[in-house]
């Protein structure tokens, strides 16, 4: 558990946060630019001397003004990846990676989280080719990979990512995303991820903390938060669920992949994919709607948002899978929808998308 009860003044407004955040998974700190998201990370890292209050992570007190406790940044088992990467320009990629390892990384042997070794990080972020380069020679995406790898080698028990994708173009973002997902899947380190980009939050977050003008307006698991009235419509409309699936066969005359998933066999429009490949299947809320017919499934409703512009977001449970569906109120059997009622839904397979799982590295031997 990460307990926060902090306040500090910025020029335009005062930041006032009192909340508990989960110490597992990815917490997205979401809000407009300049609402104080990055300042929260600075407070957690101990870089904000004006920050007053109380911070503890997994029962370890990092700051408690009442008792006069304030751990310096170098004493906190935390690592922060800055927006632009902030690689040391006078050091090679190898020396950058070793900087934290030699300092924080070597002190914290008793870390409850699994600690990554140098070679593991190099492999995980595909850095072996760059290892002797200077940061000036790296692309934005490469620099960001080095920066995140560097923070992991400090063996933090809390990882702070400050908009790691913000300075990157579309293609670079797509290149980094799988690395962040791997981070999520393979490491037991809690991550606080600052972002103002809807797509990133939907793909990466387990927990959503909404910020507005220095205040926390909502803090809840993503599945719950998406149905909340306080969640911005932009986020709600992009709701999606990802599943792992395996390709059974690719039909190259119709350009359809037949895949097997926990939802059964589905036919997804796709470019060529190998039979047997493990893929990631994304089911956007647009693709799930009440409906009857031979391919309808029985789902039980586990939550429903209030209507916005005549549409609601409904959470369904189908055979152990949680799905989101965005539908006009008119299409629902009743409104408001009661939790627990059974209804037939259809998944519009033509709107699903396949992506390689954890690419470009799927050779991890674990």
């Amino acid at each position: 558990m990460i307990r926060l009860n902090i306040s500090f003044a910025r020029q335009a407004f005062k930041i006032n946060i009192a909340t508990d955040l989960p110490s597992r998974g990815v917490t997205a700190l979401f809000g407009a630019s300049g609402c104080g998201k990055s300042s929260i990370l600075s407070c957690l890292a101990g870089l904000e001397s004006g920050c007053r209050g109380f911070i503890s992570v997994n029962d370890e007190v990092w700051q408690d003004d009442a008792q006069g406790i304030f751990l310096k940044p170098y004493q906190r088992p935390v690592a922060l990846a800055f927006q632009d990467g902030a690689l040391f320009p006078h050091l090679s990629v190898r020396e950058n990676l070793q900087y934290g390892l030699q300092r924080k990384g070597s002190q914290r042997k008793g870390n409850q989280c699994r600690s990554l070794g140098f070679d593991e990080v190099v492999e995980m972020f595909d850095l072996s080719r760059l290892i002797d380069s200077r940061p000036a020679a790296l692309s934005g995406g490469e620099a960001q990979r080095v920066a995140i790898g560097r923070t992991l080698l400090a063996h933090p028990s809390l990882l702070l990512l400050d908009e790691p994708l913000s300075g990157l173009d579309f293609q670079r973002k797509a290149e980094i995303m799988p690395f962040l997902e791997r981070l999520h899947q393979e490491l037991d380190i809690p991550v606080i991820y600052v972002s103002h980009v809807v797509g990133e939050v939907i793909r990466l977050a387990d927990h959503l903390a909404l910020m507005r003008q220095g205040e926390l307006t909502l803090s809840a698991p993503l599945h719950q938060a998406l149905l909340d009235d306080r969640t911005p419509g932009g986020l709600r409309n992009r709701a999606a669920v990802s599943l792992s699936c395996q390709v059974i066969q690719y039909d190259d005359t119709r350009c359809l992949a037949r895949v097997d998933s926990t939802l059964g066999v589905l036919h997804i429009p796709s470019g060529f994919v190998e039979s047997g490949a493990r893929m990631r299947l994304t089911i956007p809320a647009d693709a799930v709607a009440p409906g009857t017919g031979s391919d309808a499934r029985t789902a039980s409703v586990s939550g429903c948002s209030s209507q916005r512009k005549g549409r609601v977001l409904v959470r369904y449970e189908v055979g152990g899978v949680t799905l989101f569906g965005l539908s006009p109120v008119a299409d629902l059997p009743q409104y408001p929808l009661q939790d627990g009622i059974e209804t037939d839904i259809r998944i519009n397979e033509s709107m699903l998308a396949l992506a390689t799982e954890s690419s470009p590295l799927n050779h991890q031997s674990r």
Partner: protein
Amino acid sequence: MEFLSPLWLTLKLATITTLVLILLGTPLAWWLANTRSVLKAPVEAITALPLVLPPTVLGFYLLILLGPHGAVGSWWASVSGESLSFSFAGLVIASCVYSLPFVVQPLQSAFEGINTALIKSAQTLGARMLDTFYTVVLPLSGRGFLTASVLGFAHTVGEFGVVLMVGGNISSETRVISIAIYDHVETMEYAIAHQLSLILVVFSFLVLILLYGVRNQRRSPI
């Protein structure tokens, strides 16, 4: 080569002054670059005073301060038994005051030019302040140190008024090259004045070529 003794004295004075100023100026510049204290502006103003004051004003106060009855001078006399005014040690102190802004200002702007995210990164990666300074700040302010050293050195070589007032004209003790040239001109020894002046011109020119050469080279991409 008797006439060259002022040259050696000048080089010795400038070298020692530069070393002392780098040692003292670095923490001062670091503090100025990072502090949010209300004292910042007054300290910056004091540091910059030697830039605007006529050397005679500076020399006058230093003479009083370093003299046998001055605060620093009398203390020095009680410790070492020697006078500070009209001595080499006094000249070093005077030069340090006179050249202070030329060392502190380039260092300060070099420190201020370092991306704060780099310093914060170093701290969150486990570096303490001094560690951060040695491993991140120093390597990234190389050009600032070069500029500070060269300017401090060159400015000390070129000083005249302060030296004249504090040091006087004692051979191989306080008779630096600028004083020697003035002296030779006064006594109509134009030949020696010519030689010394030319040496100073060539020397200064070479130093500046070195400075700009290295600076331009460092600016090119790594």
